[in-house]
């Protein structure tokens, strides 16, 4: 056979190996703390994640940033371990301890060799239960946040996200705010405020610890009981705070907000509106629809704006889902001269996914990807533990992950169109951009996408430190 003959015959897939999402077990300690364990044989690194259903969206507006600042400040010293001594004790175990907060939850986590799990849990407990919130360190962390806000203003990508969220939500929704707080709220975040947040977090009835890895020979509930048995014991209990936050739309007709950044060689674009809660009953059709629109590498947006027009390095669209209705957005950066055509083409794709049924080929591509990639997503303990944590935080059914592939398999063309029509709203789109208004302002005004507001440049400038190491890395496709 010639090489051409060999390559002309496309291979067909073999027999798939059966895969099931790993089984997990749940134990409830006397305090109410749930212990969720998942045994993953031959995975010597164990991932442990303590989650409390108390997140950024639970904090009052005037104290925006308090939850994340509390999380940051908890690694600044505890009763037994002043300063960074606790983190150093973790390092001696080869473990990095993290405390963080999302919109829905407060989390403390560690990844450690199975043999050192007990010792690592003791440190995790100390970190969560006994932080001292030193005045000078909290002041420093406040300053760091304020400095970071300067960097946000100067970085078009961070700036456009902040502006987009502030645009689409009413001011009484936490989702319109910056999770880390703003120039007004951060100075109010005193150690007393942080202690108050910390007390509210110490509630075992809203807490679970998820532990996954090779747990052979370990009695995990007993290790957790030893370390975290008195978690929240001395604190008053409050009622379950699992009410979705307000997430109303501040936009009732199409608008364009363009932040002028002179000389920008690209326009950072976000187009969208208030989207959906993770608890939406049509979660799976929405996922498939979003994959076709802007999730797959060959999504409609990507094929149009990248592979045909070359306007951008990449474009995506999707729903950022939380307990309440997170944003739906189209996200891209396009060369300045292509700003108006890029908006036009994006709007065209949003209209098309609503008006025209997807083809059977498109449905198959999205469905087969989401179903097929499922085992790849859960190769490591960290990924399995993360997914189970999400189930706990949002009170999703225990079989949510086990059912996932069947649910996606069952999605139809009709369900996709209904999801698009129900959840993509062209009549209240916000188009928010950061770019050079001198270069595109007139064309934008003439295009008539919606009420246009051009916001003058406030600052010249900067980027987040996290991006630095990344920028040094290789150039990817």
């Amino acid at each position, binding site marked *: 056979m010639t090489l051409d003959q060999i*390559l002309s015959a496309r291979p067909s897939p073999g027999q798939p190996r059966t895969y099931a999402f790993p089984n997990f077990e749940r134990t409830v300690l006397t305090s109410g703390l749930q212990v969720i364990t998942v045994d993953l044989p031959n995975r010597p690194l164990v991932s442990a994640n303590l989650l409390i259903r108390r997140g950024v969206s639970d904090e009052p507006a005037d104290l925006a940033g308090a939850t994340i600042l509390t999380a940051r400040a908890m690694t600044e010293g505890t009763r037994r371990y002043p300063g960074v001594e606790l983190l150093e004790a973790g390092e001696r175990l080869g473990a990095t301890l993290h405390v963080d907060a999302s919109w829905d939850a407060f989390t403390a986590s560690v990844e450690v060799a199975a043999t050192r799990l007990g010792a690592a849990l003791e440190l995790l407990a100390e970190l969560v239960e006994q932080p001292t919130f030193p005045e000078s360190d909290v002041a420093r962390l406040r300053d760091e946040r304020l400095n970071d806000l300067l960097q946000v203003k100067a970085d078009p990508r961070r700036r456009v996200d902040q502006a987009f969220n502030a645009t689409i939500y009413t001011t009484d929704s936490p989702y319109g705010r910056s999770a880390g707080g703003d120039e007004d709220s951060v100075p109010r975040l005193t150690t007393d405020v942080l202690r108050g947040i910390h007390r509210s977090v110490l509630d075992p009835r809203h807490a679970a610890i998820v532990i996954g890895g090779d747990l052979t020979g370990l009695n995990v509930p007993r290790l957790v009981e030893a370390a975290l048995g008195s978690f929240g014991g001395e604190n008053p209990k409050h009622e379950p705070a699992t009410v979705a936050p307000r997430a109303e739309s501040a936009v009732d007709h199409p608008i364009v907000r363009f932040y002028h950044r002179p000389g920008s060689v690209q326009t950072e674009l976000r187009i969208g509106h208030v989207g959906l809660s993770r608890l939406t009953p049509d979660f799976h059709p929405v996922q498939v629809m979003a994959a076709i629109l802007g999730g797959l590498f060959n999504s409609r947006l990507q094929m149009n704006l990248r*592979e045909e027009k070359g306007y951008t390095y990449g474009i995506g669209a999707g729903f950022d889902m939380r307990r309440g209705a997170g944003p739906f957005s189209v996200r891209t950066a396009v060369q300045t001269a292509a700003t108006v055509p890029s908006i036009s083409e994006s709007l065209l794709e949003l209209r098309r996914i609503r008006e025209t049924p997807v083809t059977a080929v498109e449905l198959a591509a999205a469905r087969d990807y989401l179903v097929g990639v499922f085992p790849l997503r859960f190769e490591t303990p960290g990924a399995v533990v993360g997914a189970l944590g999400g189930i706990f935080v949002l009170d999703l059914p225990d079989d949510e992950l086990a059912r996932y592939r069947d649910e996606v398999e069952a999605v139809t063309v009709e369900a996709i169109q209904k999801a698009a029509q129900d959840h993509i709203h062209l009549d209240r789109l916000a188009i928010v951009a950061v770019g050079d208004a001198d270069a595109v302002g007139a064309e934008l005004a003439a295009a008539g996408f919606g009420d246009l507001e051009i916001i003058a440049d406030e*600052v010249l400038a900067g980027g987040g430190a996290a991006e630095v190491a990344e920028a040094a890395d290789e*150039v990817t496709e």
Partner: protein
Amino acid sequence: MTALSVRFTDERLANGLRLIVSEDHLAPVVAVCIWYNVGSKHEVEGKTGFAHLFEHVMFQGSGHVAKAEHMALVQAAGGTMNGTTWLDRTNYFETVPSHQLELALWLEADRMATLLDALNQENLDNQRAVVKNEKRSSYDNRPYGDWFHKLQEHVFPPDHPYHHPTIGSMEDLDAASLEDVAEFFRTYYAPNNAVLAIVGDVDPAQARAWVERYFGEIPANRTIPALGDMTLPPLIGTEAREIVEDRVPLPRHFFGFRAPMMGDPRLDALDVAAQILAGGKGSRLYRRLVRDEKIAQDVSFFVLGLIGGASIAAGQATVRPGVDPAVVERAFEEELELICREPVTADELARARALIETFELEALQRVDERADRLAMYATLLDDPDMINRQMGRYLGVTAADIQAAAAEVLRPENRVVLTYMPAGEAATGTTDEETAA
């Protein structure tokens, strides 16, 4: 902790393709990773950015695969894929459910064998536009965005292949022609210039048979031109300083040093030093500049291993508002001087070793990372078994090794200092010219 052992086979097809297979049935997934021994260091003047532009063209179809179909087939198979280009090499990879391995191998073979059958001006022009937008979004429109390119310019002399950035220049990207693409393909995309690693839930005999079937008939190129001599003196020679005006609110210093090549034990020692200097809140630079003196917003220090004459060791510190940038530079440099002058403590070394051990184990849990490293060590060091020895090398680094390597590398006459200043402030900037003793 459990010592990690990656068992693999290492062989060559008759046409020179190096095949590495490693079996691991823990998860029903398999990673395919192919490294071509060509990177931006192979580019000549007037053709910068070409290796990376070419990498994009590799996704535009081949003899039996249509434009964008590579992505479509891999994703429909439940897989993930990408390609990357760097100074020393270009790689392409897919991770797929194990029953889709043959598809991934066929896709890679088809473009290695028949890329030029699908090449056309329209696709080249489209990807040229995409890559120019990649350059804008990753570098040109980003605050502090060109810092690494500037370090390259100072760490490597103008006639050295590491002097220019992998992304290239807009002018050179504009000038790239179809004939350039064809020539590049014929020269470098040959089986004897590639390493193929397959790791995961695989039957090695079956995998070998498929590789033989799809790649075995692809002709070798026996006349791949050798790279010129990339040897460099170990030190830059004199300190290089540059003040860069940018639209940034906070000044930031970037530090760069010429360092020993990948595979040199001194680079391992510098990797451990980087952990002690800037890895986490207990590290020296973080503790002093961020926590104690509160003069920096953030710090980092790291090593980028290369094989063409020298590597780069680099660091950065963002200056807090109201602080003299010279004070931050001085403090940063004093910490580097200290690690050259005195051995690190036993506790610092023990913490760094324990963390590195966890990081390595964490990374190697994944089949795609193992495939990438096997192909990397085979391509760059001709030594895939380094995957099993690298951890031991890190754990064997002593305080004396760190001090010796630091003293050789972190010297003022081997240093680049870039200082980004908010536009309009650079003229009045107070960065002083005093160099470390």
